[in-house]
């Protein structure tokens, strides 16, 4: 298998990585770059857990060939700062339970909020209709996103923030 070097922007950083033609963007993020925030659920397009932004648009990482991302911009859940109104809102509304769908939900929500400053609940429901959640029943997720649009949540203050995520060593060779 030939390794092909590509350059792409990941969370604002110009990144070089060598990939195989048969690797998906999701596999490269998780297993080459150790960005394990993005989840691998069904791995065949059914669940939305792998949602990342590609040039600002929410797409499925498991059905995107890594090679097709050369020269493009990828944004993952790791781009969201620890103090962020959307995170705080998910927290306050109980919009994450087991948390498996959460990175995908957050990225779909980020994509929507970048286009619509104050999305209606219908438009939120439509936007997240490709992201499955087995825990919350969706209500808290819709409310959490709506609250950000309505400006009724503030990012958490420093003392209320959870400890930073552990860092994961250098990318696997």
């Amino acid at each position, binding site marked *: 298998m030939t390794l092909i070097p590509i350059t792409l922007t990941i969370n604002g950083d110009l990144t070089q990585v060598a990939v195989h033609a048969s690797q998906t963007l999701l596999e490269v993020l998780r297993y080459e770059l150790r960005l394990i925030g993005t989840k691998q659920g069904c791995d065949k397009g059914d669940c939305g857990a792998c949602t990342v932004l590609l040039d600002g648009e929410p797409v499925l990482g498991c059905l995107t060939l890594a090679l097709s991302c050369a020269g493009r911009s990828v944004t993952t859940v790791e781009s969201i700062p620890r103090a962020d109104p959307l995170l705080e809102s998910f927290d306050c509304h109980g919009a994450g339970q087991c948390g498996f769908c959460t990175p995908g939900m957050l990225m779909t929500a980020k994509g929507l909020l970048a286009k619509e400053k104050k999305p209606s609940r219908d438009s939120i429901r439509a936007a997240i*209709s490709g992201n*499955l959640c087995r825990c919350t029943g969706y209500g808290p997720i819709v409310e959490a996103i709506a609250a950000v649009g309505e400006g009724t949540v503030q990012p958490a203050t420093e003392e209320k923030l959870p400890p930073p995520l552990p860092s994961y060593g250098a990318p696997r060779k």
Partner: protein
Amino acid sequence: MLPLPEFTLHSPRTIDEALGLLAKPGAMIIAGGTDLLPNMKQGLHQPEHVVSLQHLAELRAIRVEQKVLVLGAMTSLAEVAEHEDVRKYATALAEAAGTVGGPHHRRMGTLGGNLCLDTRCRYYNQSQFWRSALGFCLKKDGEVCHVVEGGKKCVAAASNDTAAAAIALEAVLVIRGAQGVRRVAAGEFFVADGARNIAIARDELLVALEVPRVAKRVSAYEKLRRRGAIDFPLLSVAVRLDGSAVEVVVSALAAKPRRINGAQKLAATQVEAIAEAAARECNPMPNIDGDVAWRKQMVRVMVKRALVRAIGAAQPST
């Protein structure tokens, strides 16, 4: 985890270059990849060469010409669904595109990929392991059909939402091959063979869909599915009205979408009679999910819903 099999990816910059690459044995096209990649992950296709249409910008436009609407094969389903001119002149097509999968699939998936979608069956869209346990089937690697006992021909279902709409709207597919350009009416593009239900050679490329613009024409699309998103159609219904003339196409039955003959002799306002004709002519099979008796009953309901909406749209608003 479902790793993809190995292949070489090509990203041609011109249509001619793409056609040259498609001549390689075992080459397949990837557009949005939302059908091809899951199928490859399940071992349904093992192309040695995958030819990406990503950089063929000329395939990505929607043009309004005097007599037709031209939709490039690489136009995303989201754009087809939202485009004002498509909604106006090809309502059923915009509605159909808008019901495909979820929003991510519509953003990634293309019109060309949808029209060329592989047929689906509950005995085919399964992992290699699952299929091997059953001894495979006619469509791939096996000798029998698990849907029709003793069947000699695969009856996997056309599961693409845009197929019925394209046929109802008398759309034409523009296809490029080594020999040049040819045009095929959507009504003839889909054939009754579940193994491969599209009349396009492996080394040809679908370039665009042309939809005629006809004054006062209205159309509508209805889809039966369990959830409001993600699910493939359990029934797919497109209707077109030109004054009192009506065309009804029902799909997600077998490999070829079905034009309802009985409807062609009736006036659009004879809603009950048209729905009755459709119910008589359509026989859902246990090839896809959903109770067969329920799907059969729902033919009538879905046809009525589509007709009532189209008739409503044909009325001058007061």
